């Protein structure tokens, strides 16, 4: 009877060990898949960035041709004190699972108004891999009142900020310069996505490396 009990418990222990090994293997494979996904996203986004930047440079060159080289050059850049209208929000999570920072682009944020001036773009790629973190909506987006006039106010403010940025090259600017501005805004959005994917890629590659070293040892 005792022997049967001992056999039963050793079988249970073996089954538990097998289950743990299967679970460990599954986690390793998940890390590898996450790493490969992030690497693929990184390369794809860089390709997209290259074409967006090319378009922006071409539009800038066209604007320079129509407005004159003296009207679009580095000497005209505003060196008076001013804060960046487009900035980043860096979110740090303190728990063990989401232990890497996350970047969110805040386009044309105005320090004067408390609402409605910010256009926040979330990283859609991160939405697929990091669940709850990316369902978080910006606190500023939540403050926008749900009236018909509010989106128009936001657009007006954004247009004012864009015009203010263009004004360093004069009051009347070429449409190509406006187009270049939009291209570089798109490039910024892509760059923030790249920054988030880069963090995922580096953290998953570290995990895969540790697993490989554990296998070798």
């Amino acid at each position, binding site marked *: 009877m005792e022997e049967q009990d001992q056999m039963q418990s050793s079988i249970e222990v073996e089954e538990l060990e097998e289950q743990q090994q299967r679970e460990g293997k599954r986690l390793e494979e998940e890390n590898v898949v996450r790493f490969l996904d992030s690497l693929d996203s990184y390369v794809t986004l860089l390709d997209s960035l290259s074409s967006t930047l090319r378009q922006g440079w071409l539009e800038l060159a066209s604007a320079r041709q129509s407005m004159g080289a003296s009207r679009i050059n580095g000497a005209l850049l*505003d060196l008076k004190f001013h804060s960046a209208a487009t900035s980043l929000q860096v979110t740090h999570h303190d728990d063990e699972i989401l232990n890497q920072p996350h970047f969110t682009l805040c386009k044309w944020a105005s320090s004067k108004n408390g609402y409605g001036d910010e256009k926040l773009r979330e990283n859609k790629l991160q939405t697929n891999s990091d669940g709850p973190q990316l369902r978080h909506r910006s606190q500023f987006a939540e403050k926008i009142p749900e009236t018909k006039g509010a989106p128009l106010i936001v657009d007006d403010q954004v247009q004012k900020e864009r015009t203010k940025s263009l004004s360093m090259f004069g009051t009347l600017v070429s449409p190509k310069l406006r187009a270049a*501005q939009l291209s570089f805004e798109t490039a910024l959005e892509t760059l923030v996505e790249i920054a988030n994917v*880069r963090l995922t890629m580096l953290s998953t590659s570290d995990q895969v490396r540790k697993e490989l070293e554990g296998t070798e040892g």
Partner: protein
Amino acid sequence: MAGRAQIPNKSSALIAMIADEDTVTGFLLAGVGNVDLRRKTNYLIVDSKTTVKAIEDAFKEFTTKEDIAIVLISQYVANMIRFLVDSYNKPVPAILEIPSKDHPYDPAHDSVLSRVKYLFSAESVASGRR
């Protein structure tokens, strides 16, 4: 309160740039330019007269400032200070190498891809199979 979600710690930050004039101008049009009270900017325009020391100093400055979260650097400029860029390993600020007008992006020189390419080497694959 039981089961309360962690409140994330948020902070606002800037994007710094070390690139050629057209790239910097374009991103300044997008509103990322910042000039502080001491007239220090969050960008460095690199041209033929810019010294390697100036680029190194700007890189060190931008990567140590607490209010900068991303540093954009043209890849051909990063190649001039490759040792410095490759030895940088903090998550924030993130160093992103970008193409420039005259120098297309080359994945072989990207510091991030260089860090992970060992995972695709024949040795690492073979050792994982043993």
